[in-house]
């Protein structure tokens, strides 16, 4: 196991990216910080800037107006980059799939490493998704996928 993966598995810093969501998944992500679920006891903390983040928690369908900004946020993230799509909309577009302002879902724009479906997924499911992703890394970091 490389030093990077070892330290990554100890303490994960997540950045929350909302690109055209109804805000429910976002509230459930914030709920993870509250005393009931308390993400911080796992060493996971929410950071304010993507430059400090290990994992992006992405929500929303990605509207056309958000598209260039989503790409920019992903570029600003330091390697190794991991993206978790949280919620039905981020996974597949959900009920808004057929709208004219849809530029996503996320995996059409940036590489996604894990999907947490639900509308919204419960905080337990979100934590489970992030932890499973980190465990699955065991020793290897994801190769950089190039998307057209």
């Amino acid at each position, binding site marked *: 196991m490389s030093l990077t993966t070892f330290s990554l598995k100890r303490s994960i810093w997540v950045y929350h990216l909302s690109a055209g969501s109804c*805000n429910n998944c976002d509230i459930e992500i*914030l709920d993870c910080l509250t005393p009931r679920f308390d993400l911080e006891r796992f060493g996971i903390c929410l950071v304010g800037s993507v430059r400090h983040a290990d994992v992006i928690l992405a929500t929303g369908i990605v509207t056309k107006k958000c598209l260039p900004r989503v790409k920019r946020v992903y570029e600003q993230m330091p390697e190794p980059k991991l993206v978790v799509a949280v919620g039905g909309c981020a996974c597949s577009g959900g009920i*808004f799939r057929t*709208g004219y302002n849809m530029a996503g879902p996320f995996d059409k724009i940036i590489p996604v490493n894990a999907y947490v479906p639900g509308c919204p997924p419960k905080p337990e499911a979100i934590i489970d998704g992030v932890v499973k992703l980190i465990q699955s890394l065991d020793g290897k970091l994801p190769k950089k996928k190039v998307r057209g």
Partner: protein
Amino acid sequence: MAEKRTIIPIGPYHPLQEEPEYFELFVEGEKVVDIDVHIGYNHRAIEQIAQRMSWDQVIFLVERICGICSTSHPIANCNAQEDLAGVEIPERAKYIRSIVGELERIHSHLLWLGLAGHFIGYNTLWMWVWKYREPVLEIFEHITGNRNHYAMMRPGGVRRDIKEEDIPYLMKVLDELERKLEMLTKAALDDPVLAARLKGVGVLTKEDAIKYCAVGPTARASGVPIDVRKDDPYAAYDLVEWNIITREEGDVFAKTVVRILECLESIKIIRQCLEKLKKVKGDIAVNIKKMPPGEGKGRHEAPRGETFHYVRSDGSNNPVRVKVRAPTYVNLPTCKATVPGESVADAALILASIDPCYCCTERMMRVVDRRTGKMELDGKDLIRLSQEKTKKLRRELGI
């Protein structure tokens, strides 16, 4: 002489706001002189998707307009469809609708209170309030099956009943919540730092509230006593006793007080509805076999204000038009009246005080020096400024 103005960015991705939106603050030194709001980041083409859905599918679509006021859009849309069809829902359904609507009001106001606490640097308040909010979400999961997006409403009534054996559990949770809320009210009203930080900040005058057609706690805190539940009663709001909460000052403190007291009124309403549910039996929905051609207008007092839906039908199974107007749409422009003249450290708090829900609004804050085009301050600096101001006030007050 060239004007020295700087613009401060808040957005599109900013830790203060969960949703992307874009505020441009034009400042001179420490004072904000103008503000511009750019939205469009959350525009998900809901009105257009609705035209291809059937009447009952539209309810599931509009529920997902907003996660926090998740049931207010279904209630407004059901009111509009029932207005179109000319039906009245059964009495039991009325009580259940009011119960779900008021529980949502409590959860939404508590959410806002926690976030407001975070903005001013009281993270303990944030954690405590969101902890008190959890039992409300548990009630939702118990009676509807989900913590959010409850799927309780259908045109003609409600989709699920509240069982008799659940009522004592609900009453118990409400009693506990009421005790905590009363403690919170006293703590908030007595705290000298909160008073110094929030009183007189971001005042929205009554004239401006009327000019911008503001609704909800934003308007009620400025002395405009409008509330759809009293003005245009629906569901069980004219079958139970409760009061409209208003304040005259129009500042952030007034908005906070209005919201906390409204939570207590909501508990009063829910208790009365639960008592009535024990006595009123019967169906929970009427079947609307076919939607006649015509138009319907429905509204609901969401936690942020009046939510208005307009529907038009040509007699077929799909609506010709669904128009959604969320309360934040009319409350957001009031920032043009409340933010200029205030300091940069207060700007983010004033914007948060209207309890903006951008996902309802459409569906996106930045400072740049006008002369050089360079970014002077970013979003993190703004939270830091806001929290530092609180610390400074505490020192001055000797706390």
